[in-house]
């Protein structure tokens, strides 16, 4: 094939002009749309103040938060003013190690007060030594030990690697995210991080803390009671359920509340929505005024939105799952009612006529003529909404209705126990995904059986 000459192009243009022009128009409008979208996004970029946001954002916070949600730190603290030495998980008073049972990477020689010497093995060949008011750092890659004295003013000597930040008021040792120390006047604080969730199964103070699964199993079957009040098996369950840091019992209860909200809300919505849908369908209810009223009712409860309904219900019923149930039920009565009434209007009328010809009454006509036809839609839509309501229940829960959403907001507000937040997020996701799988399975099972 050779290139088209100008004459030939002109001839094509004049003969098939319409086709070519349509083609060009088809080509132009996606480009135009793209330009529009880009312009809009550029407007939004500045309207939302993205540049300032980037400048103000605290990504370091994100890193720490991410680290904190999958790891925990043990504080080794020497307070010179109060003459106190403490090793504690996350620096919490309730999780302080006894002097007799310090972790094996902390070694104390002599009195543990201001005079004693503390050897801390930081891992990776680095060791931090606290002697009196001095912290000495030694390790690979350092030509000489680094020593900082936490007197009224800070003073230091020795080799200063790049990971040590010196300020007149504060010395930061940031060996890695997992090995850090902070020295201020009168206070030496060493952090060492470990992977995992601390005291997930039992509280730090619990007699069961640190036991392995095998030991627990043996304990559950042994006759020697740790607590004379109850059997060992009951104690294990009790200690786990009542774990103060993780609140397994409360979290489980909150999850149950959320599932109840979604389940009951959807059940009520489907149960109320179905009869109303019959009344809103033109082929069942010939009376236009009542049809109009019901349809506008559907639009209204749907349009007002679950958020607003939940706020009104919180005022009336107080905090708790009941509030969530009614908010979900009311909103979805509208949604499901509308969907059902559309399904009813689209049925094949022959079956209803067949029933009528046998002299069946109105109820029998609906039961055997209409219901079997809309059953697949009824079941699949109800299950679909059950699944999506599990998510919604989390959200309205967070706004005050209770359940796992509220629990999540509580842990986020304290902004400290990120591992708890992650725990709740993981549990919520598991419940949502489980609902998704169950409803999908039921949908296939039930609607598949309905079609046979």
């Amino acid at each position: 094939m050779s290139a088209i000459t100008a004459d030939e192009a002109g001839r094509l243009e004049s003969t098939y002009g319409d086709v070519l022009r349509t083609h060009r128009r088809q080509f132009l409008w996606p480009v135009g749309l793209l330009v529009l979208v880009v312009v809009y996004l550029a407007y939004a970029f500045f309207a939302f103040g993205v540049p300032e946001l980037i400048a103000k954002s605290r990504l370091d916070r994100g890193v720490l938060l991410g680290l904190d949600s999958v790891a925990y730190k043990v504080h080794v603290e020497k307070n010179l003013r109060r003459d106190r030495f403490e090793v504690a998980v996350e620096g919490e008073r309730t999780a302080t190690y006894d002097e007799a049972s310090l972790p094996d990477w902390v070694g104390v020689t002599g009195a543990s007060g201001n005079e004693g010497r503390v050897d801390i093995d930081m891992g990776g060949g680095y060791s931090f030594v606290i002697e009196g008011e001095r912290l000495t750092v030694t390790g690979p890659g350092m030509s000489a030990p680094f020593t900082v004295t936490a007197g009224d003013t800070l003073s230091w000597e020795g080799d200063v690697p790049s990971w040590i930040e010196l300020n007149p008021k504060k010395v930061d040792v940031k060996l890695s995210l997992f090995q850090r120390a902070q020295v201020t006047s009168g206070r030496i604080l060493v952090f060492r991080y470990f992977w995992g969730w601390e005291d997930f199964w039992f509280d730090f103070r619990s007699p069961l803390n640190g036991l392995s699964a095998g030991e627990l199993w043996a304990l559950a079957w042994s006759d020697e009671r740790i607590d004379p009040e109850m059997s060992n098996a009951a104690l294990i369950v009790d200690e786990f359920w009542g774990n103060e840091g993780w609140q397994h019992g409360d979290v489980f209860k909150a999850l149950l509340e959320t599932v109840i909200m979604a389940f009951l809300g959807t059940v009520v919505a489907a149960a109320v929505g179905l009869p109303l849908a019959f009344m809103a369908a033109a082929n069942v209810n010939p009376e236009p005024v009542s049809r109009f009223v019901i349809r506008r009712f559907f639009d209204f409860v749907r349009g007002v939105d679950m958020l607003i309904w939940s706020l009104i219900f919180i005022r009336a019923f107080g905090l708790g799952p009941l509030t969530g149930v009614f908010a979900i039920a009311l909103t979805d009565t509208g949604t499901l009612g509308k969907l059902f009434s559309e399904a009813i209007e689209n049925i094949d009328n022959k079956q209803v006529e067949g029933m009528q010809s046998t002299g069946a009454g109105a109820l029998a006509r609906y039961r055997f003529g209409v219901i079997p036809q809309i059953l697949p839609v009824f079941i699949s839509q109800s299950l679909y909404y059950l699944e999506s309501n599990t998510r919604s229940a989390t959200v309205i829960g967070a706004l005050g209705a209770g359940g796992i959403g509220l629990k999540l907001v509580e842990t986020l507000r304290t902004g400290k126990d990120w591992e708890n937040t992650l725990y709740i997020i993981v549990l919520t996701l598991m419940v949502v995904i489980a609902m998704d799988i169950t409803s999908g399975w039921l949908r296939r099972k039930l609607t598949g059986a309905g079609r046979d």
Partner: protein
Amino acid sequence: MAMTTVDQLQAHASSLERRRRLYTGLGAAIFAILVVLGFIGAEEMNSGGFVQGLEKFFDYPGNIVSETAEAGTGWFERLWIYLPALIETINMAAVATIFGTVFAVFLSFAATRDLQVWPPIIPVARRIMDITRAFPELILALFLIFMLGSSPVPAIIAVAFHTAGALGKLFSEVNENIDRGPLEGMTAAGASWTQRMRWAVLPQVLPNYTSYMLLRFEINIRASAILGFVGAGGIGSELRKAISWANGADIAALFVLLFLTIMVIDQISGHVRRRLVGGMFVGAR
């Protein structure tokens, strides 16, 4: 094979029927017990009771209405005052929908077997969609607000994230149902993958994509309004302020604005969707 008489067949059929009824009955009974237990549990866990609550149910809406009536014509000014907040919320939803849709298109193409993509990527894309879909927007938004500070951007990211998964799944279902004829024709003519997708797949799926996207836009407006409650700005923040100050007239103004917006968007998108999807079928026949 044993002889089967009509009686035996009938007996078998009626025993099957009895068993079916038993299962249906059992299922219904378990379901009823679950519902009753659920209500008892919910009533117990709730801080206020159902019966007392029912009496108070109309108090709050009543207060709002009476305070609105007191405000008189000044109330309409409030609608105007809150308009910028509403526009911010709509913008949040729009930007989130745009980004979410773009990601959803990529994910859905990567998750569909028929579209001749690199096979190992299919399960990966599907799992990504499952996870992004299951993630409640609120959780991500709260996390991002902590990192980025209170602003609409965390909410946009959160909503877009969820939208990518939710739309991606719907889009991939659309992709699976396309007519393979044009695709095969393009392949026979030696078209590249991009050309095949552009000229054989996109024209078939675009009307449905647009229809789902509009539906999602509507949902995202609600989501953005809700996220405003936790510090993402827009009409949700205003509503939160009005509710904590118990300012009935303001609450009414915000409710009305939100309600009208959702109604209008619902109507417009319903109209456009009917035209798009209906139009496609008219064109095809």
